[in-house]
């Protein structure tokens, strides 16, 4: 096991709690979707928890993130409330977007979560703009931009990162490389193994880490964010990870070779971190159990809140088009 600079016990507990919140939340969403309680489709973050949590644990409330169609985990990691995320996924009035956004378009501006876009790669230049705003306002905020390996083939990736690099903006670009753009494997659409290699084209650091190791992500993000706050510009941080399930609720992911899936699922970030916490005596079993009970209760409460919340009135479809 690799060693890392020691984090305080409370911080480690927080990392575990957030990861577990995402896992339980996503598993619950999966079940509820199967019972036809959730309209549309869903893209679950289960399996990738260490990325959002490892990055966001370095951010302050006034820092920004942008997110993707697979965005529930980003919201939770940045501090949005489970109950209002769940209500939005249900299409309820009490959801973050009053039922107008749904699973793929959640935002919580009160915690700097600038929103999830369902257009792959579209959040990249927007995060660049948040970085530009920070620079122009002269604050020490930072922005983290989450996107997948698929998005790194979009023009917005090139345009957005090049602009941020040119202007030394305080943004970290976090590529969640889960090896598949929907059903297309990375090797079918690029000649490189590490997306982080592309950083050299922009004259910025490119770092690849094990995205299923929350402490590895935490430490790499810590360095990148320090660099950003110090005015030294952006970093491209690639986190190798794997979806626990298919692309969306209906996808059994049969295109992933069994051996590959097995190997990755053995490296599931949650049991791995739990074992690590116990083996290093960072947390006792009792402390871990207490976290697990609290998380289960919080997710249950979120479901109850969403179920009991009213739907918007139909005419509310006409609101919020213009400011």
């Amino acid at each position, binding site marked *: 096991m690799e060693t890392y600079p020691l984090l305080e016990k409370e911080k480690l507990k927080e990392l575990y709690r957030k990861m577990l919140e995402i896992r339980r939340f996503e598993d619950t969403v999966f079940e509820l979707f199967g019972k036809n309680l959730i309209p549309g489709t869903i893209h679950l973050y289960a399996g990738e928890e260490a990325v959002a949590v490892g990055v966001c644990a370095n951010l302050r409330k006034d820092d920004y993130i942008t997110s993707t169609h697979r965005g529930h985990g980003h919201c939770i990691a940045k501090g949005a409330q489970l109950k209002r995320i769940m209500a939005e996924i249900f299409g309820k009035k009490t959801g973050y977007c009053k039922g107008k956004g749904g699973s793929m378009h959640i935002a919580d501006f009160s915690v700097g979560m600038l929103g999830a876009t369902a257009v792959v790669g579209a959040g990249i230049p927007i995060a660049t*703009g948040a970085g530009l705003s920070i620079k122009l306002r002269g604050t020490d905020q930072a922005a983290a931009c989450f996107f997948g390996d698929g998005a790194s083939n979009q023009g*917005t990736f090139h345009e957005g990162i090049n602009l941020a690099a040119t202007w030394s903006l305080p943004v970290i670009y976090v590529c969640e490389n889960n090896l598949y753009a929907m059903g297309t494997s990375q090797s079918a659409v690029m000649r490189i193994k590490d997306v982080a290699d592309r950083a050299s084209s922009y004259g910025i650091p490119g770092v690849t880490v094990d995205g299923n190791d929350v402490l590895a992500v935490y430490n790499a993000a810590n360095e990148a964010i320090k660099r950003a706050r110090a005015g030294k510009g952006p970093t491209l941080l690639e986190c190798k990870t794997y979806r626990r399930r298919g692309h969306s609720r209906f996808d059994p992911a049969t295109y992933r070779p069994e051996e590959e899936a097995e190997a990755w699922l053995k490296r599931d970030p949650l049991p791995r971190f739990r074992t690590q916490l116990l083996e290093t005596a960072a947390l006792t079993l009792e402390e871990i159990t207490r976290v697990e009970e609290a998380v289960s209760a919080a997710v249950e409460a979120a479901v109850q809140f969403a179920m009991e919340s009213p739907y918007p009135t139909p005419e509310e479809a006409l609101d919020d088009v213009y400011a």
Partner: protein
Amino acid sequence: MSTLEADAMREITYCDALREALREEMLRDDRVFLLGEDVGKHWHGAFKVSRGLAEEFGEERVRDTPISESAIVGAAIGAAITGMRPIAEIMFGDLSTLAMDQIANQAAKIRYMFGGQTAVPMVVRMPFGAGASVAAHHSQSLEAWFMHVPGLLVAVPSTPYDAKGLLKTAIRNDNPVMFFEHKLLYGMKGSVPEDEYLVPFGEADVKRSGKDVTIVATLFMVHKALAAAEALAKDGVSVEVIDPRTLTPLDTETIVNSVKKTGRVVIVTEGCRTAGVGAEVAAILAEEAIDYLDAPIKRVAEPDTPIPFSPVLENFVIPDEKKIIKAVKDVL
């Protein structure tokens, strides 16, 4: 106040009027800044609208960008939702296609998708329009595309007075505004007051009063319509020329009332005819004023072709005074 009432004032060009609007709003509000390709001190924008601004406000607030339209608009959006009021320049309106996702899917929808949690106060300025022999990639009139996207506002100034007043309003507006500047208007002079003023959105301007037929015209076509009206006056035909000034919001009341008065209407716009601005205006009139019409609604627009290069070809497709006069005579 309309442009026509402003004749006692100093005369400046459309380009100067736009620059004054930018400068005044940058002085008024530190959150306002410009970004775009070659808007800074080396070039001052393809049409020199930002001349002197980088020198006055510095390169932090007048930012030259790479040739990356998606990033220009995307960065403007990101800045707008985090407390700034950006003005993005797209060097030619045709190139807005390169930023279309950022404009139509992001800027326009962010407020709505997120349940009104935020607003996107930004302006996208675009020189556009035909008549300069720069062919199919630098000449289009795409206003109608943006009218079709809920969440965007669309401003279409035809005079220096309107250009300055509308741009100041656009910069202070909390929504994304697509601001169309006709490239043949930049050098046109007109009366502009020394004192500060704003032109509100959604208020059409009656550029000429008349009683026999209404012409609804936008941008450069306003001037061709006014010339046609002058010529028709000599034949005893009294033409009213209405300039909507913004297409979203559209002042349907002024247009409908004028048509109720005259009973006849010709709609003159650049941009190809099918599903164009004129189609929307015609549909509104069919819904709200059909009982008052004494003749079919007539549209004068470009045919459904790209804009060709050779002046002989280009002049054939752009609406002109003759085509407008013929259309008016057709409805009389």
